[in-house]
């Protein structure tokens, strides 16, 4: 270590001691570490570990009152208060310096952490992979490159190996080997994730399920589909539609996303309002654990209360607890009559009233209720040349009804539309019953994400909020950012209370990012909302988990992870916050 580094480490050590003394009474250990950890190296981390042990020891001697306060849900106010309630500015200044990276710039909690001490891939490893995956071990940089970058082109890894198994057995052999060799693995499906969870951070081996695309079985009486994890969602939809069924989920990425990835991220989508989440529709999973063990929970039974329901743990685990290799999912019948309505509203309050009217008058035939704002429409017009089918309004709603009787549905829809128009909840609208027009109206909602990518660098936020407050966040964000952002748009599954807030700028802008975060997370936490409704945590949001989950819960998640993946080789640096990795 250089002299400078030695001096700095002592300064750091001293500062920590000082902080510990001052903050002893009210600091939550996790938030303390979260502020301090990002810029420090392994040596510093060791220092901090010792500091923490000292801290915990001191804590045990403390009042139990203080202990219980620290384990309460971390609210945004608490997050800053240990330092703000401290008297001296000096302390504040030193904490800011702690935050700083080597060049004095602020390191964001969404930036990648330091590389963990996994082994690197050697020629021997490649020889092993080539033996079990003849011709499907890819090391050509041009071929590996697309799998190193996410769909948003916002994060890039430096993996040199892409593996493409075709069977569960091959996945098992790969993981067993990687576990024994301490090689990190990044499971990858369609690579359409929006939180940087699908691509490597460093040189993790990419394990792609793209070739595991066989449909294994479909039972046309029960509607249960069993398939490998690499099946593309749209292909499954086509397969099912021929047999008069549909997938219970649908999302804009359906042409590329794979069912394994959908399950791993507990994808929501456009049909959740009607068919529920994957936690309800997935009946069974086949997984490979970190040590190569194959866990066969691939049941096709609707009801099975024999022991703990293990598959629920893996749904939404983002590839950190096991690699999903096969899925069995319950599919609904294809509706005989589908209608899509595109409405325009003047205010958000009217939109909400329309939603209530919708639920009461359309009731059981309602299958989707989405919204977009006028900014979204502007982007669709400008970048994708999609015309507005109705007159310009501040808010637009896409409503879909699905039922088994066209006449019955048409009547209900007619009554609803008449009521909506006569009570002036809706200022304009159009209806589609034909397939082509339905697709055209849906594309106005589904392609907003695409239009945003053409507008510039996009900052995406996927928030769950109480329905009445959904648009408030968008207006507050616009006020807060002023001219700093190019566009601030809000759209999403208003029926599920899920807002997609997007901010664009001409290029990547750290100052803008600093203005957006943690403002958006604090705002969300103040309503007890979720900072990631359906996109998951991945790389970008892992450290913000505390805004929506108690530290006890997160600690338990860490324990489960340690139990299922002791070496931490599965999708490292993702989903769980950095401070758990000690």
């Amino acid at each position: 270590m250089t002299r400078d580094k030695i001096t700095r480490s002592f300064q750091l050590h001293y500062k920590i001691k000082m902080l510990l003394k001052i903050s002893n009474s009210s600091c939550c250990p996790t938030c303390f570490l979260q502020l301090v950890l990002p810029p420090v190296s392994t040596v510093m981390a060791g220092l901090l570990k010792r500091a923490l042990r000292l801290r915990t020891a001191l804590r045990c001697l403390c009042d139990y009152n203080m202990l219980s306060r620290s384990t309460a849900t971390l609210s945004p106010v608490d997050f800053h208060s240990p330092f703000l309630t401290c008297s001296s500015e000096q302390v504040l200044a030193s904490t800011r310096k702690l935050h700083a990276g080597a060049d004095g710039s602020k390191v964001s909690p969404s930036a990648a952490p330091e590389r963990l001490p996994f082994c690197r891939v050697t020629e021997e490893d490649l020889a092993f992979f080539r033996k079990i995956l003849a011709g499907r071990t890819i090391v050509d940089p041009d071929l590996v490159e697309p799998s190193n970058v996410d769909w948003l082109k916002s994060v890039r890894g430096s993996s040199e190996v892409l593996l493409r198994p075709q069977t569960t057995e091959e996945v098992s052999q790969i993981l067993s080997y990687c576990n024994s060799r301490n090689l990190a693995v990044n499971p990858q499906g369609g690579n359409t994730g929006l939180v940087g969870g699908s691509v490597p951070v460093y040189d993790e081996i990419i394990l792609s399920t793209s070739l595991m695309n066989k449909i294994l079985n479909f039972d046309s009486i029960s509607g249960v589909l069993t398939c490998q994890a690499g099946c593309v969602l749209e292909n499954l939809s086509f397969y099912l539609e021929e047999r008069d069924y549909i997938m219970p989920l649908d999302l804009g990425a359906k042409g590329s996303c794979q069912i394994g990835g959908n399950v791993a991220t507990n994808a929501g989508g456009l049909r959740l309002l009607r068919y529920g989440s994957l936690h309800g529709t997935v009946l069974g999973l086949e997984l490979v654990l970190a040590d190569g063990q194959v866990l066969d929970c691939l049941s096709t039974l609707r009801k099975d209360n024999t022991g703990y329901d293990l598959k629920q743990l893996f749904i939404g685990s983002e590839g950190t607890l096991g690699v999903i290799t096969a899925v069995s999912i319950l599919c609904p019948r294809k509706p005989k009559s589908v209608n899509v309505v595109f409405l325009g509203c003047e205010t958000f309050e009217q939109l909400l009233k329309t939603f209530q009217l919708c639920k009461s008058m359309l009731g059981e035939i309602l299958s989707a209720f989405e919204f977009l704002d006028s900014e979204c429409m502007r982007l669709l017009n400008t970048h994708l040349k999609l015309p507005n089918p109705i007159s310009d309004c501040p808010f637009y709603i896409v409503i879909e009804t699905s039922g088994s009787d066209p006449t019955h549905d048409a009547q209900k829809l007619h009554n609803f539309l008449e009521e909506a128009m006569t009570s002036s909840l809706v200022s304009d609208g159009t209806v589609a019953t034909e397939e082509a027009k339905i697709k055209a109206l849906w594309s106005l909602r589904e392609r907003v994400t695409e239009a945003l990518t053409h507008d510039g660098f996009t900052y995406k936020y996927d928030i769950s909020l109480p329905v009445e407050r959904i648009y408030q966040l968008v207006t507050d964000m616009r006020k807060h950012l002023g001219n700093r952002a190019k566009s601030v748009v809000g759209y999403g599954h208003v029926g599920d209370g899920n807002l997609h807030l997007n901010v664009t700028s001409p290029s990547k802008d750290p100052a803008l990012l600093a203005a957006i975060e943690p403002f958006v997370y604090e705002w969300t936490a103040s309503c007890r909302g979720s900072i990631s409704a359906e996109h998951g945590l991945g790389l970008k949001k892992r450290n913000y988990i505390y805004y929506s989950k108690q530290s006890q819960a997160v600690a338990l998640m860490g324990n489960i992870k340690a139990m299922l993946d002791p070496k931490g080789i599965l999708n490292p640096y993702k989903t769980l916050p950095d401070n758990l990795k000690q």
Partner: protein
Amino acid sequence: MSGRVLVGVKRVIDYAVKIRVKPDNTGVVTDGVKHSMNPFCEIAVEEAVKLKEKKLIKEVVAVSCGPQQSQETIRTALAMGADRGIHVDVSGKDYENLGPLQVSKILAALAKQEDAQLILLGKQAIDDDCNQTGQMTAALLDWPQGTFASEVSLEGDKINLVREIDGGLEHIKINTPAVITADLRLNTPRYATLPNIMKAKKKKIVTVKPADLGVDVTSRLEVLKVEEPPQRQAGRV
């Protein structure tokens, strides 16, 4: 001149639907399959409504030949801006054998009855691809015809037309009354907005039978067999 335009609209299987041949090879499966207005007929309706909005014509009458469900197609035309509808009731075997010759006889009879100044049709239907009705109707009425129109403009009692033909674009001038068939680039059909959809429910649709118009719909064609095209084989590089 009456300023009345007759627009023919045909109810066909929606173009996004995958067509399946009936097991007995007598036709395609139509039961329970999504139907909608022929895309070229939509373009014809849009053109008629545009002419009315420009105050060049006074009334748009939508006509459809077929079973009860054809009324839905007429309703769509009404929602787009047509004023009233005429449903020529043809069902069962007669409907299965209904072809361009019979439809053109019906349209000719209606044109005389309604004293139409212009007949607007789609250039062809996407189910049979005949591309004959417009031409036959003009011949039966001995009216000029402007087919494959990609631009239409009325000039007094004449019509300037641009036709899309294989060699390029042909500019012609024809007298009225005339028959025009719409091609793809004539216009982009509008979405029927809610206020218009509501209004359309109140517009009148009159039902008549071919016999009332003095038309015999017996077909002189007999369908022998309908089969699927050969399956595409995978190529080889």
